[in-house]
């Protein structure tokens, strides 16, 4: 089911939504960086960049497509089921729902809409975060490209700030990693939005399903640690 977009377009709303200070709980999550640091796979700005590149092209691509699809008005329950199928790790599914619930709280305060209320009613324990993100963008009058950009950027921005804390990495070097990834991020967004538009007609199987085995396996290991800095 596809519904028409709501509020009129506001580009500045994108800045509000994409701001790292947007209070949606992301600061307590490392996107797998804490597990990768502990395993010795991320040790520097260079290895952080490869980690982020891998995330961007796998879970980042999937999240961007889910967000774009939600922004286009595809049924959030269908998208949530598609997100479940693309997230084998139960720890990552729980994280995605927790972050989705936290984002929804912020979204309803910022851009109240009947669609967000309906999502909260249908998923009291949270829908997958990218689905909520797409519907939030929609309620803010943003389009699928904006939603996909937010999701793709979050997929690398979160691990980067987390790694600055975990490794005491030079923040300038870390931020330069994000800047270098920007062209790839744009390309991922373009492909994700195209897939989301196909999904409007062909169903959610048209959405990408790219996976990072070590992200899933690492998340399960991390969830079992007795002591950790980040929630995921």
């Amino acid at each position: 089911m596809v519904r028409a977009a709501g509020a009129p377009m506001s580009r500045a709303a994108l800045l509000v939504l994409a701001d790292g200070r947007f209070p949606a709980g992301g600061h307590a999550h490392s996107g797998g960086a804490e597990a990768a640091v502990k395993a010795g796979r991320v040790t520097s700005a260079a290895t952080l960049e490869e980690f982020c590149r891998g995330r961007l092209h796998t879970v980042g691509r999937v999240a961007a497509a889910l967000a774009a699809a939600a922004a286009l008005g595809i049924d959030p329950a269908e998208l949530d089921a598609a997100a479940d199928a693309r997230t084998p790790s139960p720890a990552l599914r729980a994280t995605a729902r927790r972050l989705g619930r936290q984002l929804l709280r912020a979204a309803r305060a910022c851009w109240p809409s009947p669609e967000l209320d309906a999502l909260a009613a249908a998923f009291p324990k949270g829908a997958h975060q990218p689905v909520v993100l797409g519907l939030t963008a929609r309620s803010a009058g943003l389009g699928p490209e904006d939603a996909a950009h937010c999701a793709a950027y979050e997929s690398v921005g979160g691990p980067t700030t987390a790694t600055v804390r975990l490794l005491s990495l030079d923040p300038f070097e870390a931020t330069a990693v994000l800047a270098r990834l920007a062209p790839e991020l744009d390309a991922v967004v373009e492909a994700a939005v195209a897939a989301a538009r196909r999904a409007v007609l062909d169903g959610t199987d048209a959405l990408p399903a790219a996976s990072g085995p070590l992200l899933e396996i690492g998340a399960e290991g991390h969830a079992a640690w007795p002591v950790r800095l980040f929630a995921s």
Partner: protein
Amino acid sequence: MGAGEAGRVAGVRVATGGAAGVRAGDGGAEAEGTDAGVAQAEGAAGITDTGTPSVPTTVSDRPASPATVPDRPASSATASGRQAPHATAPTGAPAPTGVRARARLHARPDGRGGTALPVLEGEGPLAPRRTRGSGDAARVMLVGAMSGPLGGDRFGVEVHVAGGARLHVGSVAATLALPGQSGGEAHYDVRLDVADGGELRWLPEQLISVCGSDLRVATRVEVAPGGRLVLREEQVLGRTGESPGRLSSRLTVRVGGRPLLDQELACGPGAPGGWDGPAVLAGHRAVGQLLLVRPEFAEHPATARMLGECAALMPLAGPAVLVSAVATDALRLREVLDEALALLG
């Protein structure tokens, strides 16, 4: 590079039998899509309506001759009624150059407590053979009559397991994705369908992505709410000491029509960036998944746990558990997946 050289992968059985030697991917020109070849392949399709072991009588080698018939238009194939099942070229366009081959397996109860195979067909490089089963299950081995798929090939396997039937499918050797003379992607499409009360164990040997190859694997599985499935897939990135080819493999599983699992892995030259980095494979050269779908998991989900450092057992959002693993080589990958299979019974 003949298939005989392909054995340089630790712990992997690689087919060298029969026709493999003639599939010289880097050597002589390919002979593909000749009328004769298609005719032979079609002739190979063996259909039986009994539960007795049935082997296609003339599972044929692809033409070994280096002679080519390059410009046969697709329309002539259509006119002759021999267009391959998966050919997609529009009428009037040049025919795709790779081999089209398909295998089909249907399993149903034989009425005597066992499982019959009313459809057991293969063609060209895909040859299913019924072997001695155990208990009430039928067992089929896919025999790699050739070493493909080569670039441009398009293989398809379809399996249907009816209610009350139990089918165990394996393969005698690893599948090698090889570069083809004509270049281009090869496709390997697998469709598995398990009805209520049916059980499929799909446990083929590894897929080895040889340097220079380009293969797209799509596995689509439909399991009815009361169906049971054990599925293993393992990808090995290159033979020992060799860089891998391009491989992308997508596994899509639905249970009762609802998405259960949708995972794609892309690796090798030209794959999206970061595939060998710390988020995806981190230098591991073997990656695999073991999926178990059972109605009982709906009531009693498995508990997530690590299996060593590089594998995890994960209950899915449905009546299933997935073991996902990476390893340095095929042997270690198989060890961890075997351990998981034993654990889950």
